[in-house]
């Protein structure tokens, strides 16, 4: 990472996105500093994935500006993406490559030297326990195995910003624990994690701040305590979430 400047890791200013007449994200303004783990919550269809896709440059805001580490994604996408790693809920992996070939591809894509790649990979292989199947074609992997290899790929270049959609789906409890630790370590080293999840326990346990989007609008943002104050109740995040998004099925 080695980012010393004071720009925000992720900055969204008055971002608006519509699909024809359907508004997906309504004037979203959001600043996420470096070193923060931010949990982005919301019912299905609230605008979470659209927001994530705008942050990683897959979609263009209809209005507004998205910046990653000070780089406008619409104007300077390559510089922004060099700082990013993105893991979607259904991650892509080349099926006719082995896990190791895929990770080498990712490392070269981000310009890692062979020495840096091998050192980093050695550690991730142990932590994510992927060594046993790393030299098999990925087409033979289960969902959880693919998820672990993709996570290794995302963390391989030590990204300044990790954007991850439903990170724990398909992982076993042991790997979930490892991933939680990796996220904590990333943020302690100054990295930022932007995480969308429906598993509220994880958001409650890991997140420095939580944002709740509902019907395309950010209706609440803050630490867990701040959200409790907003909801005027001393309950779990699940209760707060359900109260704020009343009438919706999460």
């Amino acid at each position: 990472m080695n980012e010393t400047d004071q720009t925000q890791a992720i900055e969204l200013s008055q971002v608006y996105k519509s699909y024809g007449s359907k508004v997906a994200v309504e004037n979203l303004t959001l600043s996420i500093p470096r070193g923060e783990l931010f949990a982005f919550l919301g019912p299905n269809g609230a605008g979470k994935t659209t927001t994530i896709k705008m942050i990683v440059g897959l979609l263009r805001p209809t209005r507004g500006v998205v910046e990653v580490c000070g780089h406008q994604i619409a104007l300077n996408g390559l510089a922004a993406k060099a700082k990013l790693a993105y893991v979607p809920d259904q991650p892509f992996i080349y099926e006719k490559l082995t896990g190791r070939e895929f990770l080498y591809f990712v490392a070269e894509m981000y310009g890692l030297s062979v020495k840096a790649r091998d050192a980093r990979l050695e550690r991730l292989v142990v932590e994510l326990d992927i060594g046993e199947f790393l030299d098999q074609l990925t087409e033979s992997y289960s969902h959880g195995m693919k998820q672990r290899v993709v996570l290794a790929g995302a963390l391989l270049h030590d990204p300044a910003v990790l954007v991850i959609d439903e990170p724990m789906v398909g992982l076993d409890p042991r790997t979930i624990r490892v991933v939680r630790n990796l996220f904590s370590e990333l943020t302690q080293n100054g990295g930022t994690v932007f995480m969308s999840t429906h598993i509220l326990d994880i958001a409650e346990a890991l997140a420095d701040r939580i944002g709740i989007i509902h019907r395309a609008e950010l209706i609440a943002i803050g630490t867990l305590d701040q959200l409790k104050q907003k909801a005027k109740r001393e309950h779990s995040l699940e209760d707060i979430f359900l109260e704020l998004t009343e009438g919706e099925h999460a």
Partner: protein
Amino acid sequence: MPDAALPQHTRSRLGLLFRVRGRSVWNRIIVAVREAPVRLTTAILLIGVVWIGLYGLFRFVFHQLEQTPLEAAVAVPMVFNFFFLAMLALLAFSNAIISYSALFGREESSYLLTLPVAPIDVVTLKYIESTILSSWSVVLLGMPLMFAMAELREEPTSRLLFLAFFLAFIPIPGALGLLLSWSIARFFPRNATRGVWVGAGVVLALLVVGGLRTMAPQDTDEAAEMWLHSFLSSMSFVEAAFLPNNWVAAGIDHALQGKSSTALGYLGVTIANAMFISWLVVRLVSKHFDVAYDRASASRATGSRVASNASGGIAGRVFFYLPLPLRLVAAKDLRTFFRDPAQWAQLTILFGLLVLYLTNMPTMKLGLQATGWMLMIPFLNLCAVSLILATFTCRFVFPLVSLEGQKLWLVGVLPVKRSRLLWSKLAFSMTVTLAVAVGAMGLAAAMLRMGPIWTVIHVGVTIGICFGLCGLSVGLGALLPMFDESNPARIANGLGGTTNLLISVAVVAVSLGGVLVATYRSRYLIPGTMPDAVSLSCVAGSVAVSVGAGLVALWVGGRKFDRAEV
């Protein structure tokens, strides 16, 4: 920030993308050699047989043309002009479909766009890949044409020149296809499917209208000569200097006349233009790729309600004769067919070309007064229809049961025996194939003024072959399924799919063999008279073989499907 000021890792990654693609292909070959050597060998042998067969056919045709040098001098350049013009249109359309899917429909594009890869690298990769995918078979099957000609002219060195013309030509339709796919995503994202429909329809309509304009039968030599003059003058636009087909045709023509330097000049023109149009289109599409991708993604997010209404009504009524649960499944398959451009586009293109050919047949005064030729041409039509049907059923009908396996939690709990579901698949596939195949054979009969006897024979055999091929694909699809695979193309290319293809081709060959015997035995009959008992028996045997193969496959597949654990 300009690119030059960016860190090292944000420079072009095209080489890396190609290396990864190469590695994937290599791994695929290794797996195929290790796990399915028979399939691989069979595929190579079949391609070899087809290649040699085509080479022999073209040699024969060119040899025949050589007997009439004056006609050949006029016909050969014209044939090549038409051939490459048709290739220009077909490859551009094919490339548009493949490019659209590769750039705006596949997960890989989304993945690459989140990496520090410049859009021009992604577009260049997909452009080259799509061009290869859409053109390799044309080059492979076009080579025997070129080689046969080179052989006849005793100009072995021109083989390489002909191949160079092919390779220089294909980037042009490739670039046009890329531009078309980008335009659809950029300007008609909500109606991409409909756009392809309309595009295919317009092209086919133009071709058929063009065909109909020239279809009036010519009964006398004078009329035929006048028609030929009129036809050649109306088609003179294909020789326009700005059209790529003309550069290639003229180059080949000059090479055939031994004017190598002029031919090389045309080759240079073709290469220069191919490189220029490729550069221009790739730059244009790359520059505005993000907008097009955004629009295509947005259209997927909002869905397509129009297609749903359009196909839902038809699908609900077509299968009125089936019991309710089976009707629902068959209607679902028909809706899927209507909504999957890959399925209907291939069928439309193949049969559209067949219709074009058939509508032009009456104008061909080829001395068809002899009964033998009058029967042989319809027989060749029947061969073409049967092989197109086999291609369609193996590619699209065979995977149906495997794809159902993943939804067996839903279909499997319907109040109906599982094997009976195969009949709904059969009903769906028969509906689609019969509509186009019987239509094509009926048209052929009308165009060739076949008598009622041979019309009934050919339509009857077509129906039998339809049943046989659909029954085989459904039955073998249930017998040799790939329930864990969601990609129909991979299911069709698997061991079961290859087995189905080989058995289907064998059944078609046996069935057509019976008709061929009947055709041969009837070659001296007065038109309109009934073939002899042996001939009719051969035809009946053909139908019986097709229907029997379909029934056996359905029975065996049904038993397996009843016991299948998914």
